[in-house]
C-alpha cells in the first residue's frame, strides 16, 4: 500500500474514464438490435445493483484493499488463492484493453507499425505514470477528464450538425420485443463495462473521505452509462443497424461520416484520441490493481519495484492473447464474459457478501450468548 490519498473528484474522474474505456469505441451490445442504447441503460441499472453487492463488503473493511480482506472472509488460504486469481484476472483484462487499443490503431491509422511497438510504448507509458503512484494517476485523470469532455463536446457537436442523423434508423423501437434487449443487458453489458468497476475495490482505501464512496461510485456509473447509451444511440441513428453489426469500431465509422463545408471532415483523430485516453486509464487502473494486489499478497515493500516486470508480462499477454482480432473479439464476448467477468465480478462478490453476513450473524449470536 502506498501512503497516498485521492480526492472524490479524482476518484470520479478515474471511474468515469474507466467506464468509457474501450466501451465507447468497440462494438458491443449490438445483439440488442436497434435498441442497444436501451439495453445499455438496463445494463447500467445492473451495474447499480452490483454496486449494492460490493458496497456492504467494502463498508466492513473501508481501509483495506480487496486482497487483504478477501482472506478474512474466505479464510486465509482460499482467500489468498482468490486474491491471486483476482490479480491475474485484472491483468488479463488489462491485456485485453491494450489489445483492443492496439488493434484499433493498427487497423485504422498505423497500419504498418507492428503491434508489439504500439503495445510496448503504450504499456511503458502506463508504467511510468503508475510508478509515480496513484496520486499522480488521479490528478492526471482529473486533467484529462476536461480534455475528454472537450473532445466529447466537439465530436457530438459535429455529428449532430452534420445532418447524418436519421431517426428512421432506430425505428421501430422494440422491433423484436424486450427479449434480445434483456439478454444483452444481463449479463454482457452489466459486466462489461459496469461490472469491471469491481477493480476499484482495490483502490477504495486511497479515497480520503470514506463516506463519499457511494456518491462517487454511483454518479460515475450513471454519468458514464448515460454517455455510453447516448453514444450508442447516436451511432445507431447515423450508421443504421446493418453497418453497426458489421463494423468493428462503430464510433469511428460515425465520426467518419461527418462532412461540413468540405473542410471539417476526417475527424477520426478525435475518436482515436478519446480511445487512447480512456483505454490508457482503464488499463492503468487494472494494472495498478493487479500490482498492488501482488504487493499485498506477497508482502512486498512497494509497488514500484514490480511495476516494470508486471508491465512486461502485460505486454506479452496482450500480444499472445489471440492470434487475430476476430479471435480476440470472440473471446471477449464469449469466454471472457463467461469465465472472467461473471465469476469474478458477480459470483465471488456475491459469495463474499453472503459469507460476511453469515459470519456477522454467527458473531452476533455468539456475542449474545
Amino acid at each position, binding site marked *: 500500500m502506498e501512503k497516498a490519498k485521492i480526492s472524490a473528484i479524482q476518484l470520479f474522474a478515474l471511474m468515469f474514464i474507466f467506464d468509457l474505456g474501450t466501451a465507447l469505441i468497440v462494438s458491443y451490445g449490438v445483439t440488442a438490435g436497434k435498441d442497444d442504447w436501451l439495453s445499455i441503460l438496463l445494463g447500467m441499472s445492473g451495474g447499480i445493483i452490483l454496486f449494492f453487492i460490493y458496497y456492504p463488503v467494502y463498508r466492513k473493511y473501508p481501509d483495506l484493499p480487496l486482497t487483504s480482506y478477501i482472506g478474512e472472509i474466505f479464510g486465509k488460504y482460499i482467500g489468498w488463492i482468490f486474491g491471486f486469481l483476482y490479480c491475474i484476472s485484472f491483468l488479463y483484462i488489462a491485456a485485453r484493453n491494450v489489445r483492443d487499443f492496439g488493434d484499433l490503431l493498427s*487497423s485504422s491509422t498505423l*497500419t504498418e*507499425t507492428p503491434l508489439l511497438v504500439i503495445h510496448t*510504448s503504450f504499456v511503458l507509458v502506463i508504467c*511510468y505514470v503508475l510508478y509515480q503512484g496513484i496520486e499522480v494517476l488521479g490528478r492526471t485523470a482529473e486533467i484529462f477528464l476536461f480534455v475528454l469532455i472537450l473532445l466529447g463536446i466537439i465530436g457530438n457537436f459535429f455529428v449532430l450538425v452534420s445532418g447524418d442523423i436519421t431517426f*428512421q434508423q432506430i425505428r*421501430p423501437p422494440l*422491433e423484436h420485443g424486450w427479449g434480445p434487449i434483456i439478454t444483452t443487458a444481463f449479463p454482457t453489458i452489466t459486466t462489461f463495462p459496469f461490472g469491471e468497476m469491481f477493480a476499484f475495490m482495490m483502490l477504495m482505501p486511497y479515497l480520503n473521505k470514506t463516506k463519499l464512496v457511494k456518491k462517487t461510485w454511483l454518479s460515475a456509473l450513471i454519468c458514464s452509462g448515460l454517455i455510453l447509451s447516448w453514444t450508442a444511440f447516436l451511432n445507431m441513428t447515423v450508421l*443504421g443497424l446493418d453497418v453497426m453489426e458489421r463494423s468493428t469500431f462503430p464510433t469511428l465509422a460515425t465520426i*467518419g461520416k461527418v462532412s461540413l463545408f468540405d473542410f471539417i471532415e476526417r475527424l477520426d483523430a478525435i475518436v482515436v484520441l478519446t480511445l487512447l485516453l480512456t483505454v490508457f486509464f482503464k488499463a492503468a487502473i487494472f494494472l495498478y490493481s493487479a500490482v498492488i494486489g501482488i504487493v499485498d499478497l506477497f508482502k512486498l515493500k512497494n509497488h514500484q519495484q514490480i511495476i516494470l516486470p508486471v508491465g512486461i508480462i502485460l505486454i506479452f499477454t496482450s500480444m499472445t492473447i489471440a492470434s487475430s482480432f476476430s479471435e480476440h473479439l470472440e473471446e471477449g464476448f464469449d469466454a471472457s464474459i463467461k469465465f472472467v467477468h461473471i465469476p469474478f465480478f458477480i459470483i465471488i462478490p456475491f459469495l463474499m457478501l453472503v459469507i460476511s453476513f453469515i459470519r456477522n450473524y454467527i458473531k452476533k449470536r455468539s456475542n449474545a450468548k
Partner: protein
Amino acid sequence: MKNKQIILLFLCLFIFLISGCWDSNELQKLCIVAGMAIDKGNDNTKNRFRITVQIANPPQVAGDSQGGKMQASRVTNFTETGSTISETLRKISNKAPGELLFPHLQVMVIGEDLAKEGIADIFDVIERDSQFRVLFPILISKGPHSAKDILEVTTTLEAIPSAKIVEALRTSERYWGAYKATRVDEVIKGLKEGSFPISGIQMKGDLKAGNSIKNVEKISPNTIIQLKGTAIFKDRKLKKWLDLNTARGVTWVMDEMKSTVINLDCGMKKDAIAANVNRSKTTTDVKIKNNKPVIYLTVHAEGEILENNCSLDLGKSINLDQLDEKLEEEIKIELLQAIKTAQKEKSDLFRFGEKINTTDKKLWKKIETAWENDIFPKTEIHVNVQAIIRRTGMITKSYR
C-alpha cells in the same frame, strides 16, 4: 529513486528509437488518387474488372510556379485489369510512381456494362480498407462510353476532372434537384436492402479530342461531361434509366429536393412562367387498410416567381392562387411518373418498406419477402401536393 525513473524513461525512448517509423510517408511521393473508374474487364474470371485511377499532379493543380516549366497535364490516369479490386489497384503500383493514397478519392464512376451485370463485388474493399472513406459519390456512366472514358476528359474551371464532376453533381443537387449524389454508404445500404437510384454521367463529343490539354484551351470545349439520367438498381443490377422530370420525381418522393425550377403554363402560352421551389418537405404516411398498406405522400412546397413571360398580374393574390394550383399539378405529375415507373420496375426505390415496418412491424414481417415483387407494384399510393408561391421578386406585373 530519481535514477530509476530516468532509466525507465530512457528505456521508453530506446524502444521508440528502435521502432523506427513504419507508417511515415513522404507527402510528395504519395499519389493522391482523385477519381476512380471501374469497368467490366474483358473476361469473367481473370480480368473481371478494368480499373482506372486518376492521380492528381500537385504542382500543376496548385499552379505552383516552380514545377510548372513543362506544361504537363494536371492529372494522370493509369488503367489495369484484374479479378478483384484490391489486386487490380496493387497492379497499378507498377505504373504509378508512388504509393496510392485513397482517402482523398472524390468520385467513383462505374461503367454501364458492369452496372448491368451487377455491382455487388465492388464495395466490400471500400468498407473494409481503412484507407477508403465512404463519403464519396458514385456515378454510372451512361451511353456508349465507358467509365474510363469519362475520367479521361479534360475540364476547365476545376483542375481535376473528378473534382469537376463532384462539383457539378453538388450544384445540380442543389439547384436542379434531378440528379442527386449517392454516397457509397448509401449505395451499400441499398445493395443490402433492394432497390436504389444512382445518378448517371455522360460524355458528349469526341473521345480523342477530350483526352488532350487542347480541349481546355478552347472557349467552348469539344468534349464535355455532363450528368444525365438516374439509374435504377434492383437486385444489385442496373434495371432502367430514368430521365428529366421522372428523375426529379424520385428526388421529390425521397424528400431530398432542395431547390429546383418548374415551368408553369400561363393561359394558352406553354411554359411561360418559371417558379423556383426553394423549400420542400415530403412526408410519407402509411395506413393499413384490410391488411394492406396504403401510402400517402404529402408534399409541402414553397417557392417564388423567377420569370413571368405573360401578362398575368402577379400583384393580385387570386392569380397567385391559380399559379399555386398549377405548381401543385406539375409537381404531382412528376411524383406520379416516378412512382409509376418504380412500380412498373417492381423496385421500391423510395424505401416505403421501412415506413411500413415502423407503422406495423407485424404486418411487415408477413409481407417482407413478397413486398417488392408482388405487393409494391399493386400498392395504392396517394399523392397530395400543397404548394405556395410566397414572393414574386422585385416587381409584380411584367412590362408586357
